[in-house]
C-alpha cells in the first residue's frame, strides 16, 4: 500500500503523492455531496484515476448540527489505477463538530484534519455531546490539525454581494473546496465554469460561490498550507467521463434500445437508491424512451410486461422492498416468456432496513423469490461503469431468450462514481431482434413453438395481422400455448423453462481469473465487492503471497467453466456483504466447502480488512 501521508511540500515545490483519500464531511445542509463531486470532477479532469463513496443520512434531513444529519463524501484519487474509494481517509474536512465526531475514528493516524472552527460553538458542541471543544485540549494530537475560520472568511469574501448573512454563509463549502484545491494543486477554472453555468440565473449566488472558492484557494497559498501533487494516472487511451452506477444503467438501457431497435418503456416507482435511474431515463425522451411513474411497484412491473407484450423492451427499476412486491408479476413474466428487465439496486435489509446503505442480500431472493419453479437469468454489475455492460447484457439475454432477467446492482455502485472509458458506439454488441410476422404452423400461429437453438418462443406483437393470440399465467400446452392441465405437459413445460435458462451458460463469457498460477486459494466474488477484493488481492500479491481471484458477473446460470475452475483450487473464499448467499449457491451446485467472509454493515468492505481475513487462509 502506498503512503497517503507524507511531509508536505510548499506551493512551489509540491510533495508528490501517488494516491490520496479525502473525506468531506458536514451537515446535510452544508453541500458536501456537491463539494465532493466538484473535487472529483477536477481530479478526473487532471487525469487521476478515482473512485468515490457518497454516504448520506437515511432519508430525512435531520436537525442541523446533529450526528444524524452528517453527510459525507469520500474520494480516492491517484496516479495509478485504483479499485476502491479507499478504506480510511488521509484527509478529513469537518465542517462542524458533528462531522468531526462521526468521522474522526476513520481518519488515518497522522492524517490531515481540516476544520471549520467557526462551527465549534457551544450550541453545536452540545448537540453532539462534546462537553469541551475537541479543537482545544489534546484529543486531536495524533493528527495534523488545520483550523480555519471558514464561516467568517466566507462572509468576508462575499461581503460585496446583496446576499444576507445566512445566504452568504452557504458558500463556505466552496471555501473549503478552494483550500483543498490549493493543497492538492487542482486548478479552479473548471469549478468556476461549472458554478457560472449552474447559477447562470442567479448571478449573485454564482459570484458568491466563486468568491468563496477563490478566497479558500488564496488562503491556502497565503497561510502556506501543506502542498501536494498527484500525477495523472496512466489510463488506457480513450475519452473518459465519470459515471455513477445508476447513470451507467440508464445509458446502458438506452444503448440496448438503440442496438436492438426495440423501444424502451420503463415502469417504475421511486425508491432509494434506485430512483435516479427513473429520473435519468425520463430526460431522454428524444430516444423514444417512455417512462411511467406507476402507482406502486406491482403496477410498475405490470406496465413493463404490458409494454413487452406489445413490442417494447419493458424495464422496471427498484430496490429490495419493491422487488418483494414484484414477485408475483415476475412469475407471470416467466410463464409468459416475454423479455423484461428487473433492475434491483440492493440496500440494507430486512424490511426498510438501512435505505441509503449498501448490501448484497437480495441474491437468493432474486434466484428463488417466486412461488413455483420459475427460473430466470441473473446478471450483476460490479463497478459503477460496469452497470452499462450489465444493462446491455441483461437486455441481450432477455431479447434473445424471451425471458425476464434480473440485474443486481447496489447502493454503493448506484451512487459511487468512477472514470469510464466511453465505448465507441460501433463497438457495442449488436442485439438482433425479429418479431414474428408469419403463421408458424400451417395457417396458425403457435406462440409457444420454440426456436430449436435458444428454446425461445416467437415474439408476435399486436398489430401483426394473423398472429392474434392469447397468453396468460395458467400452464400452457407446449407449442400451441393453449391452457393445458395435462400432468405430463406441465412436467415438460417445467423442464423446458429450466432448460432454456440453463442453456444460456453456453452463450456467456466463461469465468475468468487472475493471480498466481500456483495459488492454492481462489477468492471468488460477485457484485460491488469487485474493487475491494481486487485491492486486497493486489496487496497480498505485492507482499509475495499467492492468491487468485475470480468475479462472477452471471449468477444464473453460472458460466459453464465455473465448477471446473473452482475445483482447481484447494480453497475458495467468498467475501459477501450478506450472510453467505453466493456461498449457498456454490455449495449446493458444486459441493465445495467454501469459506465465507461476511459483513453486513451497510458499507463496502475495506480492502485492508479483506486483506487480513484472506491472509488467514493462505
Amino acid at each position: 500500500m502506498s503512503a497517503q501521508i507524507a511531509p508536505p511540500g510548499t506551493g512551489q515545490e509540491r510533495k508528490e503523492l501517488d494516491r490520496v483519500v479525502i473525506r468531506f464531511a458536514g451537515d446535510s445542509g452544508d453541500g458536501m455531496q456537491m463539494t465532493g463531486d466538484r473535487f472529483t470532477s477536477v481530479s478526473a479532469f487532471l487525469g487521476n484515476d478515482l473512485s468515490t463513496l457518497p454516504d448520506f443520512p437515511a432519508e430525512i434531513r435531520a436537525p442541523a448540527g446533529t450526528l444524524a444529519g452528517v453527510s459525507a463524501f469520500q474520494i480516492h484519487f491517484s496516479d495509478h489505477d485504483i479499485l476502491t474509494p479507499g478504506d480510511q481517509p488521509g484527509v478529513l474536512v469537518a465542517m462542524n463538530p458533528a462531522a468531526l465526531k462521526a468521522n474522526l475514528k476513520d481518519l488515518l493516524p497522522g492524517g490531515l484534519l481540516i476544520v471549520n472552527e467557526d462551527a465549534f460553538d457551544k450550541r453545536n458542541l452540545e448537540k453532539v455531546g462534546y462537553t469541551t471543544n475537541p479543537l482545544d485540549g489534546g484529543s486531536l494530537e495524533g493528527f495534523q490539525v488545520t483550523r480555519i475560520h471558514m464561516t467568517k472568511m466566507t462572509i468576508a469574501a462575499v461581503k460585496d454581494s446583496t446576499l444576507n448573512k445566512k445566504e452568504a454563509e452557504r458558500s463556505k463549502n466552496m471555501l473549503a473546496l478552494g483550500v483543498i484545491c490549493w493543497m492538492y494543486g487542482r486548478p479552479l477554472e473548471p469549478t468556476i465554469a461549472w458554478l457560472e453555468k449552474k447559477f447562470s440565473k442567479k448571478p449573485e449566488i454564482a459570484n458568491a460561490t466563486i468568491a468563496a472558492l477563490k478566497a479558500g484557494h488564496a488562503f491556502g497559498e497565503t497561510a502556506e498550507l501543506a502542498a501536494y501533487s498527484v500525477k495523472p494516472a496512466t489510463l488506457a487511451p480513450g475519452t473518459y467521463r465519470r459515471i455513477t452506477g445508476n447513470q451507467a444503467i440508464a445509458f446502458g438501457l438506452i444503448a440496448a434500445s438503440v442496438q436492438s431497435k426495440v423501444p424502451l418503456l420503463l415502469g417504475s416507482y421511486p425508491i432509494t437508491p434506485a430512483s435516479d435511474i427513473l429520473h435519468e431515463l425520463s430526460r431522454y425522451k428524444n430516444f423514444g424512451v417512455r417512462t411511467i411513474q406507476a402507482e406502486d411497484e406491482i403496477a410498475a412491473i405490470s406496465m413493463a410486461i404490458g409494454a413487452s407484450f406489445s413490442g417494447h423492451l419493458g424495464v422496471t427499476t427498484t430496490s429490495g422492498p419493491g422487488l418483494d412486491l414484484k414477485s408475483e408479476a415476475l412469475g407471470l413474466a416467466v410463464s409468459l416468456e416475454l423479455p423484461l428487465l428487473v433492475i434491483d439496486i440492493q440496500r440494507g435489509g430486512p424490511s426498510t432496513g438501512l435505505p441509503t446503505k449498501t448490501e448484497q442480500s437480495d441474491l437468493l431472493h432474486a434466484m428463488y423469490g417466486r412461488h413455483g419453479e420459475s427460473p430466470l437469468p441473473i446478471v450483476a454489475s460490479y463497478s459503477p461503469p460496469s452497470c452499462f455492460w450489465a444493462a446491455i447484457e441483461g437486455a441481450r439475454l432477455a431479447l434473445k431468450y424471451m425471458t425476464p432477467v434480473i440485474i443486481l446492482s447496489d447502493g454503493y455502485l448506484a451512487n459511487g462514481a468512477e472514470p469510464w472509458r466511453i465505448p465507441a458506439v460501433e463497438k457495442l454488441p449488436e442485439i438482433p431482434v425479429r418479431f414474428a410476422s408469419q403463421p408458424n404452423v400451417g395457417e396458425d400461429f403457435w406462440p409457444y413453438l420454440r426456436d430449436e437453438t435458444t428454446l425461445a418462443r416467437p415474439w408476435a406483437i399486436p398489430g401483426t395481422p394473423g398472429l392474434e393470440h392469447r397468453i396468460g399465467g395458467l400452464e400452457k400446452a407446449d407449442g400451441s400455448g393453449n391452457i393445458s392441465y395435462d400432468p405430463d405437459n406441465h412436467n415438460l413445460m417445467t423442464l423446458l423453462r429450466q432448460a432454456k435458462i440453463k442453456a444460456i451458460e453456453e452463450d456467456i463469457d466463461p469465468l475468468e481469473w487472475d493471480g498466481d498460477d500456483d495459488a492454492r486459494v481462489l477468492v471468488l466474488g460477485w457484485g460491488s465487492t469487485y474493487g475491494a477484493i481486487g485491492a486486497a488481492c493486489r496487496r497480498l500479491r505485492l507482499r509475495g503471497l499467492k492468491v487468485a481471484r475470480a468475479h462472477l458477473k452471471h449468477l444464473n446460470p453460472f458460466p459453464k467453466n465455473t465448477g471446473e475452475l473452482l475445483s482447481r483450487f484447494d480453497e475458495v473464499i467468498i467475501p459477501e456483504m450478506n450472510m453467505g448467499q453466493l456461498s449457498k449457491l456454490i455449495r449446493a451446485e458444486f459441493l465445495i466447502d467454501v469459506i465465507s467472509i461476511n459483513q453486513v454493515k451497510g458499507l463496502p468492505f475495506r480492502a485492508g480488512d479483506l486483506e487480513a481475513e484472506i491472509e488467514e487462509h493462505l
Partner: protein
Amino acid sequence: MSELGQPEDPTIERGITEGPGGVSTLTRQDFMSDQEVRWCAGCGDYAILAAVQSVLPGLGIPREKFVFVSGIGCSSRFPYYMNTYGIHSIHGRAPAFATGIATARPDLNVWVVTGDGDGLSIGGNHLIHALRRNVNLKILLFNNQIYGLTKGQYSPTSERGKVTKSTPFGSLETPFNPVSLALAAEATFVARTYDVERKHLPEILRRAAAHRGSAFIEIYQNCNIFNDGAFVALTGKGRSGNRVYLEHGKPIVFGPDNSKGVRMKKDGALEVVNVADAGLDQIMVHDEHHESQSLAYALSRLSSGPTMPTPLGVFREVEKPVYGDGIERQLRMAAEQQGPGDLSKLLNSGDTWTVD
C-alpha cells in the same frame, strides 16, 4: 431512427394494417377464438361475450389492433374467447398491464375485462389510477357481487349482511358503488348496463369504444351459481319499472309510461317523484358533458343497490388529455427540440477528458 427518435421496429410495420379480409368485412365470427367457452351454463358472461363480439366488427378497426387484458376470475377468462391479442394476467393488475400496452402503443385498441373482486378488491388501486390518468382503455367491470371463480365469497360490491362461505354470520361491510368510485377517480367516461340487455349493452360498448381515454362500464352480471338473481329486481321480467335509462339532453324519467322522474331537491339531493304530480319541467335533464361531475355523482347515489330504481346508461362523458397521447407528444417535442437521440453524443455528454 423514426421521427420520434424512437428505434424503428426491427422487422415489421406498426401502422394500421388491414385485418384478415380487410377491416370492413369483419364479422362476429372473426372475433371468436377456437377455445371452448368454459363458463357455467346460464352465466351472464356469455351474453357479454356475445355483445362484445357483435360490436367489434362494426368499429372499423382491424382485428390485430385489439388487445384484451384481464386479471383473474371467471370474467377474466374473457380474452381466451376473443380472437384478438390478449393477456390473461394476474389477479387485480389488468389495468396496469393495459396501461403499459396503451402507453407503449397508442395505436392499439385496448380493452380491460375485470370482475368486482379483481377490479375492486385486490385491484381497486390500479383501477382508480388508470382512470385518473385517463389511459386509453375500455374497462368492463363484470359486477356479479360475488367471487365466482373461488366459489362464492362475498365481494366489495356484495350487500351488507350477505351470508357467504367466508361470512357465515353475514358480511359487515358497506359495498362500494363502482360508478361513484369511478367518478371520484376523475374518470372521463362512466356508464352502467347489464348482461342481458340486448340493445343497451352493445350501444354502451360502442359509446365506450368511441371515447378516447378511459371508459369505465359497470356491467351487472348474473352469477347463477353463487349469487343467482342478484339483479332480478332490475333486470327481471316485469321489472323494467326500476330501470332508469339515462339519455343525454333528456329528462330523467322511467317506470310505466315514463310516469316517474328524478327531481333535484332544494338541498341538492335527488328524489324520485311522479312526473304528473311534479310537472315535467321539474324533472332533471341529463347532461353527460356537464363541467361539474357532481350531478353524475348524485345520480350514482340515487339507488344504494340494484334493488331500487337504478340509473343505467352513460353517467358522464367528457374529453380530457389522454395519458399515452401526452407521452407521445412529449417524445415528439423532445425529438424536435433536441434532435433525435444520438447514442454517441449521449455517452460523451457531461465532463469528458481524453487520455492519449
